[in-house]
């Protein structure tokens, strides 16, 4: 739990220090997310909407999927393809989308 809180704290700091990302290039991997996670107004199915979500929350979830501490069906396999820096950048970019 302590590790999770630290991850949230780090992600939150990183996210809030990078507001310019909203209008900038999406970081590597970020645009693939919308294959499953809607960019529309509301999630059409059971897969959550990520645009505008808190970056720390996304980062915590991805870190948990990657190390297996959070249960997942497919996100564990996907999270393992990204470093901490990459995940933080993606989380911040998703959070900045409307």
């Amino acid at each position, binding site marked *: 739990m302590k590790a999770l809180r630290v991850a949230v704290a780090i992600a939150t700091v990183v996210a809030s220090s990078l507001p310019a990302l909203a209008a900038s*290039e*999406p970081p*590597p*991997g970020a*645009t*693939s*997310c*919308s*294959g*499953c*996670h*809607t*960019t*529309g107004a509301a*999630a*059409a*199915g*059971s*897969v959550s909407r990520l645009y505008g979500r808190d970056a720390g929350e996304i980062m915590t979830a991805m870190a948990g999927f990657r190390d297996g501490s959070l249960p997942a*069906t*497919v996100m564990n*396999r*996907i*999270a*393992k*393809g*990204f470093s901490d820096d*990459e995940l933080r950048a993606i989380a911040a970019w998703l959070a900045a989308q409307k």
Partner: protein
Amino acid sequence: MGTSLRISRREFVGASAATITALAFPLPAFAQAAPRVVVIGGGFGGASCARALKAIDPKLQVTLVEPNKTFTACPFSNNVIAGLRSIEAQQFGYDKIAASGVTVVEQAATAVDAAARTVGLADGTTLSYDRLVLSPGVDLRFDALQGYDEAAATKMPHAWKAGEQTLLLRKQIEAMDDGGLVVIAVPANPFRCPPGPYERACLIAHYLKGKKPRSKLLILDAKDTFSKQRLFQNAWKELYPGMIEWVSLSQGGKVNAVDPATNTLITDFGNHTAQVANVIPPQRAGRIATIAGATDNTGWCAIDPVTFESKSAPNIHVIGDACLAGAMPKSAFSANAQAKTCARAIATLLSGGSPATPKLINTCYSLAAPDYGISVAGVYQPKNGVLADVEGAGGVSPADAPREFRAREADYAQSWFTTITAEVFG
């Protein structure tokens, strides 16, 4: 222009000089006004790319060339064959894409002049481009399987392009007597939707189990291994015991010829006469890619893994099933992910920049039954000139998962289809 009304003498002189230059050389100024991107093919790749280009830079002139008024999606079309879904649920129009500012031209592209940067259409008109995107999908190789041509496909459907063929296979399975034999012939790699034939076997078996339980299903395969193999084979045992038989390449599974008159599939090891024969022939990139000079001797398109630009045809990008995307499989998810990466790279190139190295994801669900989903996922990045797997990531669903897990993946599969088709066409 609206920043200030006060113009200094120096700025005024500068502006005048610019005006004179513009008047003296009017053509280059016009030519640079709004870069033109033409996208050929309105499937998951092309439609996604056209839309993404316009979203990234609304100033771009984006034209989508697609002869069909309605797109019929392949993912979930196996559900139509199994009687679990209507074909209408697979169909999408281009109105919203046109409303987003993309010019949709309802024509077939018949010519590409890579040197002149023009596309010729079936009605004789010509479109000029600064960058061209080809997303033509696959062509079925009617030359690759003796006896199998377009006429044979009306008797032995491939149903590997969704629409009439999907409905034909559905009708044949519905009309078949209990105790009949369904044969699915599967080609060697690469081909569109690698797990598709095995999902099809599952869903046809699902229908037969309920309605015609004495029937059998035979898969004749030109391969010794296939996508999600262990998961599919476990599902066959668990859900359809004794119904599905898979014959691998080394067991004589490769179909060399077919006889549509007798519904017979011919292998080195013998003949199989089917009540319903679903022949999925070998494939290649859609013909326009060859016309454009973008295919190599494999019939597919080699591309730069950062920009998706053709390795043989400059200023022409190839995405989706037609391209050789390294480790990325030919799926709708891949086509959509590639489209968004390619659109970003094109916008960057057109503004004089250098595209960043991308990462791409694929996620592909298959249904072994309506409430039994399995998946494969991967993360990819350019390495040694191709898109390679990011090591340690990706893979298939666990082999030992409980049914609740399979049910969740089946639910996510449905959700995926709704979300991706809304992003592309909605």
